[in-house]
């Protein structure tokens, strides 16, 4: 690690002071509205969100990348990686809808669609485009350069 990654200077300290001022304002708000924010639960989900990302989502992405690196031929790997980034993003956004844990009993206008079908349709399209792009890239790289 290089020394210049340690922040310094007047601008940093102005941002640090004002930023932490706002953070403390937010924390005070959490406790001032404790009957609505439930600080213990809030803290659990707040810290838990960071841990869930670092302990689950990020390692899953790295494991996927390692598998792709070993299984997918180098020529088409970038295309497959791009497809997986799009597919993974869509899957994460769709989770609360596909799992069907939300909605409202007796309200047919809340979550009115077949979300699993929607997710599979989008993933099939992403997969189709990825395969086409991979075939095109393989063909292009197989051609002798002039």
């Amino acid at each position, binding site marked *: 690690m290089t020394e210049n990654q340690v922040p310094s200077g007047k601008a940093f300290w102005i941002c640090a002071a004002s930023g932490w001022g706002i953070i403390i304002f937010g924390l005070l708000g959490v406790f001032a509205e404790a009957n609505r*924010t439930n600080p213990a639960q809030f803290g659990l989900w707040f810290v838990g969100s960071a841990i869930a990302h670092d302990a689950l989502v990020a390692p899953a992405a*790295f494991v996927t990348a390692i598998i792709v690196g070993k299984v997918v031929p180098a020529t088409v790997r970038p295309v497959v990686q791009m497809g997986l980034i799009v597919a993974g993003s869509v899957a994460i956004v769709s989770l609360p809808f596909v799992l069907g844990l939300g909605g409202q009993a007796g309200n047919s206008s809340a979550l009115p669609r077949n979300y699993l079908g929607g997710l599979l349709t989008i993933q099939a399209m992403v997969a189709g485009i990825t395969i086409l792009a991979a075939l095109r890239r393989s063909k292009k790289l197989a051609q002798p350069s002039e």
Partner: protein
Amino acid sequence: MVRKPRQTLDTLWARLEPLRIGPFKDGAFTSKLHDEKTAAYLGMALGISFGVAFLTGLLSYGIQDPPAWFLWPSRPFNLYRISQGLHVATGIATIPLLLAKLWTVFPKFFTWPPFQNPTHAFERLSLLPLVGGSVFLLMSGLNNIALWYPYNFFFRSAHFWASWITIGAMIVHIGAKASITRRSLRRTPQSQRQPESTGGLTRRGFLGAVAASVGVVTLATVGQTIRPLRNLSLLAPRNPAVGPQGFPVNKTARAARVLELAVDPSWRLRIEGAVKTPLSFSLGDLQAMKQRSATLPIACVEGWSATVHWEGVPLSDLLDLAGASRAATVSAQSLQPKGLYRKSELNRLHAFDPDTLVALRVNGEPLHLDHGFPARIVAPNRPGVMQTKWLSYLVVE
């Protein structure tokens, strides 16, 4: 001899050196995409998207819980629809951006030594509210539009205060990384550029994939407010054309516990408070009055919206009949026995806008019970949760 703190710290890290295993080892992360330039591009995009979401979110909170100095106008009538639609769409679009940024900088989590001096430790500590807050905001916002609440806090308050914590942490982060970002975004001279790798994703490819992800998740959900896209938005939590009388419902009459009260023949709309003549109207009385129609959106805080044709009595006509001051604010109260949204306040601009109605009909039919039968407030440029349904009192203040 007294040892300097820096020496003590160096000694500590040297002693802990054997514990450097797995991701803590040098070279554990091989991708060239964990670089400053990629992080800088994504950081800039996140700064914009979180900035937009923060400002539009702040506006929504201000409208729902206005400070004394804030007077939200009733025109342009679509402004809240646009700002809240933008808030939710931006939040969804931020999910791939944030995941990509966190992936890019993930190796820094295992930086060795963990900190070099107190300033460095302070800067790294400030990352907890940044990462925790960012993920918390997007997670809770996404759950909210799915009406999924796996926690015991009130979403609106938790989301509001978490947004301040996150924005504060973002300002600290910007201060810490501004010079690195500036340096990273300078164009690299052609002679110093490294040849592109053929075995993996290039920076351009990675950022292109992230941009494509943003586009796909936006297109998959934004049809909940942009009606022509509703059939393309396969993951949108609402379809603006689906629901009783052709548009969605946020809270049903059953959920609000007004099933019997709303159809009681003795129902009356009462106007009280700072008026010359307190008044009471039956549904027949209201139907017999001069009606006005208005095409106004119902724009929900969850980001969906639908344009609807309303008919009813202008609220200003009722207030004038009761002898209310033109500077008055009005508290519209529901039959709903409890709940934070059982009443809403109309400021003077909304109360006396000619298109603000005590609506009795929608899309050519009497209001469906789930849309607020026998009467509801409909005003231009207001959140749906403030368009009070199952109206029972108008209290002039």
